[in-house]
């Protein structure tokens, strides 16, 4: 993964209430949650610092009211943070003029909304072409681009339907299409599949991964569904009461939960299906074993091997031995 940050948030706060900036200043930019509430403020985001890397899927996970939606709106400057800086491609978002912001949204950002937020008075193609229309691109050209997107999101033949004539899944395809119309570099998805039925949701998740495989966007994806987070994420940010609790890969969260809050999410997951050998192997490089497993294989796929053999060597993809794994470790992991 290319580790250059596309978007950086530095000490971002968002308080709701009367003159929140002055309040934060007078409390040395670090008031207790208790003090914030006693003074009648609502803490939406508390001191959030994070980086979003190019071409990764960063999932922000949290229950409702945890501030994840507000955080993502600060990143797109739909909401202005109370204090803190946000850099997008090294541009300070807070310093942008109205017109510069509009320019960035017209060319570099796209956003998908939980309840689709389609324009009910526009057809599918008019919805998808809308971001191009407001840029002043002529009809023929924008409809041509929109048709390509309609193919991409699988809505061929429906381009002249109105949103209310589509199913929920199809509506969100329009939402996804519209957000992709300007070929954005940064793609926000705010709980895009939460309003869909479980089966449709699964289908849409797979479709989403397929689209991402071909487009390689930098993605910030919000969800309250941990399974969804695990399935899609390169990295996950867990938020609770406006605070970032932990940032890490799915494996990090499961193996090293930062606190009980994170642990509670991870407890009931089928861990052998999510974790790779690497996360539980022994670092002693015993060369004696004839049987080897790859370090990035998921545990459930090597269970039988290890349990019947007693001990295996772990190798990486260039066939160097990097560690070992024995029966005791594995059975302890499963029974844990």
């Amino acid at each position, binding site marked *: 993964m290319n580790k250059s940050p596309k978007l950086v948030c530095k000490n971002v706060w968002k308080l709701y209430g009367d003159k929140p900036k002055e309040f934060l200043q007078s409390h040395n930019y670090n008031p207790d949650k208790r003090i914030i509430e006693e003074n009648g403020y609502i803490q939406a985001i508390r001191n959030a610092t994070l980086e979003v890397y190019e071409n990764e899927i960063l999932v922000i996970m949290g229950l409702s009211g945890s501030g994840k939606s507000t955080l993502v*709106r600060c990143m*797109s400057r*739909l909401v202005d943070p109370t204090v803190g800086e946000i850099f997008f491609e090294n541009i300070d978002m807070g310093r942008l003029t*109205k017109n510069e912001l*509009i*320019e960035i*949204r*017209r*060319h570099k*950002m*796209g*956003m998908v*909304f*939980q*309840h689709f*937020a*389609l*324009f*009910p*008075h526009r*057809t599918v193609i008019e919805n998808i072409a*809308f*971001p191009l*229309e*407001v*840029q002043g691109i002529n009809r023929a050209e924008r409809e041509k681009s929109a048709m390509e997107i309609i193919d991409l999101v699988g809505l061929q033949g429906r381009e*002249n*339907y*109105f949103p*209310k*004539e589509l199913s929920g899944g199809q509506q969100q395809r329009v*939402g996804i299409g*519209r*957000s992709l*119309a*300007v070929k954005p570099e940064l793609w*926000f998805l705010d709980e895009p599949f939460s309003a869909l039925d479980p089966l449709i949701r699964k289908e849409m998740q797979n479709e989403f991964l397929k689209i991402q495989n071909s487009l390689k966007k930098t993605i910030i994806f919000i969800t309250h569904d941990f399974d969804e987070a695990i399935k899609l994420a390169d990295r996950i940010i867990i938020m609770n009461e406006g605070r970032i609790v932990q940032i890490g890969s799915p494996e990090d969260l499961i193996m090293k939960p930062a606190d009980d809050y994170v642990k509670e999410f991870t407890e009931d997951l089928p861990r052998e299906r999510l974790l790779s050998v690497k996360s539980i192997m022994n670092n002693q490089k015993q060369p004696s074993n004839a049987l080897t497993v790859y370090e990035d294989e998921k545990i459930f796929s090597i269970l039988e091997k290890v349990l019947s053999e007693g001990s295996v060597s772990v190798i990486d993809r260039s066939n160097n031995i990097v560690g070992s794994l024995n029966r005791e470790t594995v059975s302890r992991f499963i029974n844990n």
Partner: protein
Amino acid sequence: MRKTKISNKIIFISLTFLTLLLYWYGKEIANYFDSKWLVKYPKHYSFPFAIYTTTFVKWLINEANFLLFTFNDLTRLFAWIIEQPYKIVLAIFSKGILRGQGQDAIQIIEPLSWISVVGIFFTLALYTKDKFLIILVVLSIVYLAVFDQWQSSMITLSSIIIAVPIGVILGILFGILSYKSKILEKIITPILDLMQTVPVFAYLVPILVMFGFGPVSALIATIIYAMPPMVRTTLLALNNIDPQLKESGLMSGCTERQLMWKVLIPVSKPTLLIGVNQVIMLSLNMVIIASMIGAGGLGYDVLASLRRLDIGGGIESGIAIVVIAIALDRLSQSFANLPTLSKKTQLTFYNKYKKIIFLLLYIISIYILGYFFTFFKFFPNELMINTSLFWEELVKYININYFDNLESFKITLLTFFMLPIKKFFLGIPWPWFIFVLTIIGWYFGKFKLALLCLVMSIFIVTTGLWEKAMITLYLCGSSVIIASIIGIPLGVWAGLNDRANKILTAFIDTLQTLPSFVYLIPVVMLFRVGDFTAMIAVILYALAPAVRYTAHGVRNINSQIIEAALISGCSQRQLLFKIKLPLALPEILLGINQTIMLALSMLVITALVGTRDLGQEVYIGLTKADIGRGLVAGLCVAFISIIADRIIKAGSNKLKNKYGIK
């Protein structure tokens, strides 16, 4: 919690008791202490608001000067701007294009003939694809020709055609402005409250003084009267838009203007169309009233007939207004409900504008035919029907045969119902009344509402109009009581029974389409003039919301609650009295609130049949062109309705919060 409830009850009972006591013995107590001011507010203490207002407006008109132009120039410019489109529309529908002045004028181009106007409305109705509506609209327009109301109708229609778009556009603009600026919203909202509660007559006077007698003044009054709901509807529609929709517009890269005109306004279109319908209805409601300051047309015909006591003529013109009202109402309603959104197909120019092309060809050919056959120009006189004689005879018949019955009905209600209420309101010493009102305000809305009640009622006292205000309260109160006694059971019936609901809704919709003035005509016929006549007219006008809100409240109870009650073994009667009615109560209260509002606005109009309340004061202000007198009395009416409105709404909200209903 319990404790406060009991103490509230004690306070409530003792207040009622004291009020009754003061009502019976107030005069004696006042006499005993030799302080008559308790019962009657002394005249020399009243503050001459009226005179100051008059002086101010006179100064405004005669002397006010904004460096480059005077206030007078400003009003003239305004009038000129409105007059131009009105002249054009009037030429098209009524006058044609004339050369020369006055009597010697020669008509160069004829106005649209009746057949062409029928064609226009037919085409409009075609867009709704509702067969019943098409027939209704065409019959309505033909009616106007057949019953010899054509000339006046077209004058009235022209003023509607001008007033409605101006009202709608201004309304949307003000709505957008107050949506964009919270400060502006805070300024505009109370102004709207006042505009909707100050009786129309009150601002007819300043308009009359500023713009003179004539159709332009009438148009301005109509626009002022009809615009507020459009502002409110726009603001409501914009505020109710899903925030995600707005965000998605922003993220698509909209500028502020693009966001407004490409996203927010189109998305609000269905709601805005409902606002348009309201503007049309209110404009029609003003038709008769506006003729007092020179509107002409049907309104003038009604007014003139009423003044001549020519019942037949009044009914004929009145019905013509009603016919126009119903046609325009249904037409605009079905445009608002039009299911425009379905799979779009590319239309050719011809297909898209087919109807309009046909209409233009139709109008041109009718115009040409008109040269050869007068039938295509004017509806033939020999086919016209005159009904005024019929109505005259009908009234005579009723009065000869049922006079005694009607009279005894009237006297019974007067002596046993209205007079006691009148005595009650006039009997309570004003300081006590204000005190109790403030307490009530405190109970429902704490400090803010208490202050509002206190300040507004003190204003009424100091204007020296207390007694007239009490008469207004008594007339309004008795009308609302009777309207509720009739309306709420009807509403419950409509709420329980689908068929009753259908019939009652149709009936009430029609009642609400009628301009308020129209109600006076039959009532005056039967009961002549006086308080009783006023009350009956007010009841008829104000009945609708009591029925509508009650039905809505009873109907909209969560079906799971009903199921739970049925499973618990409720009988239908228990279900109604133990579940449905209590849960519908907040809604019923809102209905009564609307009834009060309508009653107050109607009361001012009933001044024409000789009441002695604030409405009469406003009316006198109008007839004497006394700006201050009319405005101050108008403000008193507005304050009464604002107080009633705020208290009842607070009560309804309190109940809703208690039940956790939204």
